[in-house]
């Protein structure tokens, strides 16, 4: 595993930088009136996450993030926004009014507090299996056979082969669904 990482100050700085930027853009994303602006901020969040993935030695995932998430999904979103001409924010006064915001944020904070409580209550230490260190060491010892991708690709095609195939079926279904739903009804409905 990536035990050989050294926790340099630079690394921490980078981590916090991208973290904060991600949060800021997320907040911005939520508060924008126009969907296009919102989409842009979300893309920004995704980029920050990709960076963080890299810092967490998940290079493949970072690549996928940029490629699939930002590239594909966000593009589709933007495409749909443009298609339906929802760009102009005027008719989208969709905020639920002052009261709704306050209550929503309050609920969010409550949830956040609970999750934080869970994190801090040494649950993580308890989660760590005792033999973790040994396993990590063993994993580290083995050379990175497949390079960066190896550790991800191996399990993907060994234990989780079935799951992998199933995802393809899922995608097929999604495509068919999208096409059918999207098609303009020819018969008068």
């Amino acid at each position, binding site marked *: 595993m990536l035990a050989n990482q050294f926790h340099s100050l630079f690394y921490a700085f980078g981590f916090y930088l991208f973290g904060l930027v991600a949060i800021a853009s997320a907040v911005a994303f939520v508060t924008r009136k126009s969907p296009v602006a919102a989409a842009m901020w979300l893309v920004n969040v995704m980029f920050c996450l990709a960076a963080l993935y890299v810092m967490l030695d998940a290079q493949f995932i970072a690549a996928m993030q940029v490629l699939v998430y930002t590239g594909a999904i966000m593009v589709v979103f933007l495409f749909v926004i443009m298609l339906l001409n929802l760009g102009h924010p005027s008719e989208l006064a969709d905020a639920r009014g002052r009261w709704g915001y306050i209550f929503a944020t309050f*609920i969010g904070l*409550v949830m956040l507090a609970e999750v934080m*409580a869970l994190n801090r209550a040494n649950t993580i230490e308890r989660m760590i299996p005792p033999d973790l260190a040994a396993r990590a060491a063993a994993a580290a010892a083995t050379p990175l056979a497949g390079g960066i991708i190896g550790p991800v690709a191996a399990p993907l095609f060994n234990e989780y082969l079935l799951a992998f195939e199933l995802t393809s079926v899922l995608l097929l279904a999604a495509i068919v669904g999208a096409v059918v739903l999207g098609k303009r009804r020819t018969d008068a409905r």
Partner: protein
Amino acid sequence: MMHPAMIPEGAHPLAATVARFVWLLPLLPLLGFLINGTLAMLGAAKVGPADPSAGHDSDDHGHGAAHGHDAHDAHHAPTRHKYAAITSLVGPGVLVAAFGLAVACFFAMRSVDMERPFLLTLFQWMPVGDLNLTASFLLDPLSMVMVLVITGVGMLIHIFSVGYMQDDPGYPRYFAYLNLFVFFMLVLVLGGSYPLLFVGWEGVGLCSYLLIGFWFSEKANADAGKKAFIVNRIGDFGFLVAMFLMFANLGSLDIATVAEKAVELPMGGAIVTAMALFLFLGCTGKSAQIPLYVRLPDAMAGPTPVSALIHAATMVTAGVYLVARSSAIFSMAPMAQLVVALVGALTAFFAATIGLKQWDIKKVLAYSTVSQLGYMFIGVGVGAYVAGVFHLVTHAFFKALLFLGSGSVIYVMHAAYHATHNHDDAQDMRNMGGLKTYMPVTFYLMWIATLAIAGIPLFSGFFSKDEILGSVFARISHSTLAEATLFGVPGGTILLIVYVLGLASALMTAIYMTRMMLYTFHGPNRTGEAERSHLTEAPWIMTGPLVVLAALAAFGGWLNVPELLSAVGPVGSLDHWLEPVVGEAALRTTLGAAPHVTHQTELMLVGTAIAIAVAGIAFALLRLKPAALVPKKDSPAATGISRVLENKYFVDEGYDAAIVQPTLAVSRAVLWKGLDAGIIDGLFVNGSALLARAFGWMGSQLQTGQVGTYAWVLLIGVITLLGAFTFR
């Protein structure tokens, strides 16, 4: 019906005589009922089509209805019922046979020493636990007297009815009910155990319901019948409770055993008094005493012979018979006896006052019956059972005569009104007057009865009424009654009040009876010119029985002559005759010694009685002026006292307002609508259904279709889950 038990040796001497066919006595009228009943059904009924709801053809206005409507509004010539001939034979014939058998039994009984009553067991009726009830007939001097009266007077009334009801379309139905009535009356009188007596008791009530409501198409008649039955039932409730007391405390319901065991109970104890009082409640229901007398005047809605048979001679006397039959119980409860005597006296006085102002001839007789019944209860109340029964017998004679006489008058008046299509009231004395010229025979016979009931010497009424008053007077000083107290008042004073009330009602009896005779037979005729030509004497079939009854009314006194007038005939024959049955109980009341009154007090008593009777008649003859009377339709409404009396103290309206309407209102508003439909149904049953639906509705509010709401709900679920983890 199993063949009566074979006659074991050492059995009752009567078992060998004709008396063993006593079970035939009630059977004959039952046969009469069955035959007449089938005839009535055959005549009236037309069996319906196989499919009742096939084509509701209401067009042919069921002409079948024609044959059933009653005589009152028969406009074309009255048609005799097609089976009338058979019924006229079967109906009275059955009674004649029964009377013959009764007389035969009577002579058999005379020739035999009747120490023990003759008990004939027919079959086991209710063998349950330690109450093994057997259906058995009890023949002893008391029931013999009653049987003779019932079958004798009943026979005469049946014969009279042949004439009176001849044009009525319901002719066989009428005789069926009449026979059924005599059957139940005989079962009542011959019943060997209280439940069997109760069978007769309620059966008679049932028949009076059927007969009073005979012309049922009139709502008034049907109401009267219903009222009679329900008031009877109230009395029967008392009888029932008395039977429960007997069974619970004495362990048996057979008359003989109850009499033996009752004597062992403490004298004047709570149980015996309660038993006696409840029995008396039953008697008030049946014999129309103070609280429950209201049914008798309304019972006049039935045909007149019915009133004669049921409401003069037989049914109403059942109460007196019951008290005489359970003399053992009553003699053990002096307080109860005082109650009986007092209620009897009050009823006699109260009814007599109402009788003064009645205009309907049958209502006068009805209230006179209630009054005379009061007398009988005074007799049996003070323990003079023989006097009570004696008055019962003589009353049966002259009251039956009076009722049948009034029946003839009404029959003739009705025929007259019918001929001229006049819808005036054929029973109201104000429309009569001067009938003695048209109906001489009925006129003379009715006078004999009036003299008898008024108490004129040598007529039967004098002997029996005088003996009752005499026995009351004799017991004022020397009897268990004198020592007992009722509501704190010593027995003696109560008996004195009873005696005074008795005298007063005797005076009023003489007045209203003479009033009735004056308004009906004397003075100018007020019926109307056209009808006058139709007023003729009633046919012989109706006046024949009247003559026989008149003879009995005149010489009835001979049955039990007091030794003072020993010249007239055998002294106290009825006393000897009933001695084995009621003698012991009577002696218990008079502390063992036969009630003796000094010679001159007896003379004084007889003197006052005669004076009272003569004064009453004279007062009426002088005071009342029949000529001043005006026919009913234009006579002024009564005012003041006479209005109150005429409307019988508004007692009926009082009962209705005080008891009937409130119960109806309560049960309708509170019980049914309020409790049943309201609380139980409304609150619990439908309420719980509503609750279920309410929960369902709340659930549905969540499904607003808004995606937002679902998100919220989802989130709240997450938070609670997390919360659970964090605070675990």
